[in-house]
């Protein structure tokens, strides 16, 4: 087969697949830009016949988006900070130290991956209530403050750091904490970026747990607020489409700018 023909076939397949994967989003974008259109009209509105941003303006004014965005940002930042801090601290000894109990910790961690707990959410609810953290952002964040997956990912990263670094720090009389913060941490920035990104996505998109914990809809993050909008204005398609676009665009933009790290992280996860 000549090379140009093979290219042509490959591109046709790639474009068809892109339509399948991206088509629904492009259609949502198109609906959001057509004020007053019904998505269930016959024939349905598929391509925009005109473009206007009325839906965005109206839903923005109606929904108090700045507040929901603020909520989402706070929850996401808290969640990311907890995850980075806790998984780095936990993973470091597992990679660098030889100590009693290391195998025990490892077995415990692995066992949580094999035994999934479908009841976790119920017990989390009781725990959060017992700590009096119901209706708080902390209550939203704490159950996912650290994950075994992130610990494994960071351990993988720490394993790539030569032991000489720790030894040279010791020769100079630095404490373990100082070695960790000043010598080791700067070397694992790519790993931190990866778990940071993974958690940004997870917390930004989380909707169920926030609804369970938060009694006050004014504290909802975007994804949860969106289910609320959908329930209230199921007839106002343009508004809901615009609201949905507003909620997904930030995360898609973050992804597009960081996809290199992100995909390396996903790929690295499997070796861990």
């Amino acid at each position, binding site marked *: 087969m000549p090379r140009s023909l093979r*290219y042509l076939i*490959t*591109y046709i397949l*790639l474009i068809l*697949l*892109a339509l399948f*994967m*991206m088509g*629904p*989003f492009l*259609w949502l974008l198109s*609906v959001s830009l057509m004020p007053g259109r019904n*998505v*269930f009209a016959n*024939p*349905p509105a598929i391509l925009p016949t005109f473009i206007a941003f009325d839906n965005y303006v109206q839903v923005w004014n109606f929904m108090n988006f700045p507040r929901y965005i603020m909520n989402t940002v706070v929850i996401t930042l808290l969640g990311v900070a907890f995850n980075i*801090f*806790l998984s780095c601290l*936990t993973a470091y*000894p*597992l990679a660098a*130290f*030889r*100590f*009693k*109990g*290391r195998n025990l910790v490892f077995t415990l*961690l692995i066992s*949580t991956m*094999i*035994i*999934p*707990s*479908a*009841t*976790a*959410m*119920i*017990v989390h609810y*009781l*725990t959060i209530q017992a700590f009096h953290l119901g209706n708080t952002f902390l209550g939203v964040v704490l159950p996912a403050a650290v994950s*075994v997956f992130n*610990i494994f990912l960071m351990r993988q990263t720490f394993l790539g750091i030569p032991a000489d670094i720790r030894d040279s720090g010791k020769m100079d009389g630095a404490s*373990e904490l100082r070695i960790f913060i000043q010598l080791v941490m700067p070397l694992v920035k790519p790993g931190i970026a990866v778990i940071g990104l993974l958690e940004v*996505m997870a917390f*930004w998109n989380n*909707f*169920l747990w926030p609804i*369970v914990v938060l009694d006050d809809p004014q504290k909802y993050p975007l994804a949860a607020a*969106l289910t609320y909008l*959908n329930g209230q204005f199921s007839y106002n398609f343009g508004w809901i489409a615009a609201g949905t676009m507003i909620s*997904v665009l930030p995360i*898609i933009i973050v*992804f*597009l700018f960081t*996809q290199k790290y992100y*995909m390396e992280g*996903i*790929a690295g996860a*499997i070796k861990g």
Partner: protein
Amino acid sequence: MYKAIRSETFTAWAFMAPGLLFLAVFTFWPIIYGIPLSLTDYSVIAETRYVGLDNFTRAFQDHNFLISLWNSLVYVLIVPVIQIIAILMAILVNSRIPGIKMFRAAYYIPVVTSMVAVALIWSWLLGNNGVVNYLLLKVGLLSEQVSWLSTSSTALYVLMFITMWKGLGYYMMLYLAGLQGIPADLYEAARVDGAGPLRLIVHVTLPLLRPHILFCTLISVMGAIRVFDEVYILTKGGPGTSTLTSSVYIFQKGLEQFNFGYASALGLIVSVLVGALSVLVFRLNRKGGVNSY
């Protein structure tokens, strides 16, 4: 030397303490506490009593629970489909041609988007007068409109389709990573021996992707059994019980009706089932003796 190791042990535990504390409260405790909880009738309304194995005998007579288990098992049917399509996608995006990174990113976007948004888009697309019906009628694949999500016979499969559509990009990336780890000279050697593209895939690509296939199958089996968001947002288990999956049923019993004890028992049963399934997947994949690299 002895002293050095002992101080190292202390430092190690000191480092890990905060993380382990969180894991203890939010990962280990739910697993442990679920067991005694499942032996009680704990709910918020009445005083808690110890009821022994009542919850478990009740579970196996609970028609809706058994249906939800069955639906969850049916949901596992998408797992092999995902693997096949994701591997084919990975082979396609492994081509070295201009613009390929753009396509990879495009296929990945459903993965990073929230399930709320994805579910909303598909609920519109799949509506009676929605785009899917319109297009299928137009090309003649359908003779009349189908209410995809409110017909008992189609709803579960439509949800499975949405789960698959959202997850494909993720599995594609994992397989792509696997493909890129395969040394090019293996293909060269096979080509010299006269293997065509199909035989390259069957005899070189697939065997070397084995660890990735194992990993992806495992996480997608667990994902299929735990599936919640799309079902909860789109059908809440309906129409009737046709899309009632086990996690949705446990959620309804636990956090909507506040039968914490009974819901915990159901959760335990499902956990055991998932554990068994994972072991099964492991066993099936171990056969054939291909070592992971």
